[in-house]
């Protein structure tokens, strides 16, 4: 009896693979779509920063004339946080042979790099350490059929802002997920930058969103000020850090502007939408025929200041008037 079932299942699987209308993905996009440009975007998990970057890429492409549905066919797929699914998406996209592959996040970029094997140009975004992740040979000259943008940000301006708002600060607390490659790279960079500003680092880690509050509490006695890197685990629970900051009068700084809207005192903006736009610009250059090997990895050089006045008062910080004037956005 099971033989029949097996046969039925095998048949279903074969149909799935080969023939059913609407079920079958396009095989070779270049052959089929004619003048349409094909771009495939994948990312490891749905997350506000990743979504913003994706939107930036798509908007930039549209502005350069690659409008979805008109001149551009866009394929977007999320791996839902699963590495094996990311592998499958990467292979599927590589098999479609689009004009360009876009990966947002480190694991997605690594999966595409492996699946495309140099045959299809790749642009990545939101990768903090492209050299350490072996995506490129160097930031200046990537060398392979792959380049992109890094979300590594210089900590200098942020540290300067912290000293300006909290002059007495000696100990800088940082909360991050030690399991995120991006965060570890940021903390390393932060360590290197601290000495110039007379600050010492106090670390606290949280491997899950639920642990962020405790991590913040553990810093309350140790740190004069808390800085949150662009860490998806911690940013997801930024409110619990803000709570601790308000109660213990420890100013909380963030690295992304969205967190300021959610209660952080201030951030020198890391706007993933802008990073996405930058990525999109590189994508356009590659679509127009440039080789990724020679396009240096991009980083954002403009930073926007976001300030939260309510939090400033609650955390015992007085914001000078000139700073308020230079701020891109002030949240009351």
């Amino acid at each position, binding site marked *: 009896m099971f033989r029949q079932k097996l046969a039925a299942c095998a048949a279903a699987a074969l149909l799935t693979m080969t023939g059913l209308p609407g079920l*079958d993905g396009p095989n070779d996009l270049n052959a089929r779509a004619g003048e349409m440009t094909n771009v495939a975007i994948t990312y490891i998990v749905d997350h506000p920063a990743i979504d913003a970057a994706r939107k930036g890429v798509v908007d930039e492409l549209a502005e350069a004339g690659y409008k979805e549905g008109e001149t551009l066919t866009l394929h977007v797929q999320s791996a839902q*946080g699963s590495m094996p699914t990311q592998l499958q998406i990467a292979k599927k996209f590589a098999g479609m042979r689009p004009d360009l592959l876009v990966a947002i996040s480190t694991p997605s970029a690594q999966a595409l790099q492996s699946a495309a094997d140099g045959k299809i140009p790749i642009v990545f975004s939101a990768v903090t350490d492209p050299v350490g992740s072996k995506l490129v040979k160097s930031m200046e000259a990537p060398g392979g059929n792959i380049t992109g943008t890094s979300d590594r940000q210089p900590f200098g301006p942020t540290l300067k802002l912290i000293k300006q708002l909290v002059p007495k600060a000696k100990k800088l607390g940082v909360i991050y997920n030690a399991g995120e490659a991006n965060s570890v790279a940021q903390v390393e960079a932060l360590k290197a930058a601290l000495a110039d500003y007379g600050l010492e680092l106090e670390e606290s880690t949280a491997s899950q969103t639920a642990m962020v509050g405790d991590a913040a509490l553990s810093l309350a006695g140790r740190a004069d000020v808390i800085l949150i890197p662009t860490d998806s685990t911690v940013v997801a629970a930024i409110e619990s850090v803000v709570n601790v900051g308000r109660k213990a009068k420890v100013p909380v700084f963030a690295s992304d502007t969205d967190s300021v809207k959610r209660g952080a005192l201030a951030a020198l903006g890391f706007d993933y939408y802008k990073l996405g736009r930058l990525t999109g610009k590189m994508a356009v250059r590659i679509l127009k025929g440039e080789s990724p090997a020679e396009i240096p990895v991009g980083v954002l050089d403009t930073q926007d200041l976001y300030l939260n006045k309510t939090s400033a008062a609650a955390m015992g910080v007085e914001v000078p008037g000139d700073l308020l004037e230079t701020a891109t956005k002030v949240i009351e």
Partner: protein
Amino acid sequence: MSALAISGALEAGLLFSLVALGVYLSFRVLNFPDLTVDGSFPLGAAATAVAIVNGMNPFLATVVGMFAGGAAGLVSGILNVRFRILNLLAGILTMVALYSINLRVMGRPNISLYGETTIFTPFETLLDFGIWTNCVVLLVIALAMKFLVDWFLSTQIGLALRASGENPVMARAQSVGNARMTMIGITLSNALVGLAGSLFAQSQGVADVSMGIGTIVTGLAALIIGETLLGSIKVAWATLGCLIGAVLYRFFIAAALNAGFLGIEAQDLNLVTAVVVAVAVVLSQARRNSRFRLWPALRRAFAAPQPQKG
């Protein structure tokens, strides 16, 4: 679906058939719901990645990954039989601890193996099957492991292991040490999972500390689909079911990834997984009980609990 997409589904399926074999040993043969696998999978990957980056022969590095997975299993086994911690909890404790251990092993959350020599490298020139090379190598490994498990379960120790899992009282009366069998079984189970993690890292070119998420669910889904198709009583069929189930499961995912198919999109993947497993369970109940009726069972399953009278 392109040939590359099919090869991707096949590759992931064959990799996870090793997880399914491991889950079969723990969940079915030993009756030990072991959740260690979410940690031993990345551990196998981490150990192998570190070994390869430090210049170790990839074949040896793969064995290292397998042993690392086995060691993690042994820890869960010891927690359960020596310290009398509930089996479910023992696995969870090890899994949680492994997150930190994996970070320590790698020294950072992500190690890329891109461009390194892996066990697949020599076969690229030796076999020259193009995009199918990895699949062929993995198929050989998966089949080898299937037959190894079949053989092991037919040996004296293997028979004792099966008896211990199904009927510990009887096993003890036949001088089988249940504690020892639990430790042996969970060690072997996680060694298979560690091997899967090791091979995954090498075929993907990356070991990531968060790559273990959902390993157990995928393994269980594969196991249950296999059981639904081939039955679960005869060892050889059950292990074959692990292979077929894992590959089929990955093809279901591939189908779901093809946006437009029944309106399912990538964001519905987790729902697809849950439905696939639920349907497989319902079907396997139907197999066991010939008088089983699908609709009454579904109605029962979804019916709200009736308020008690009186």
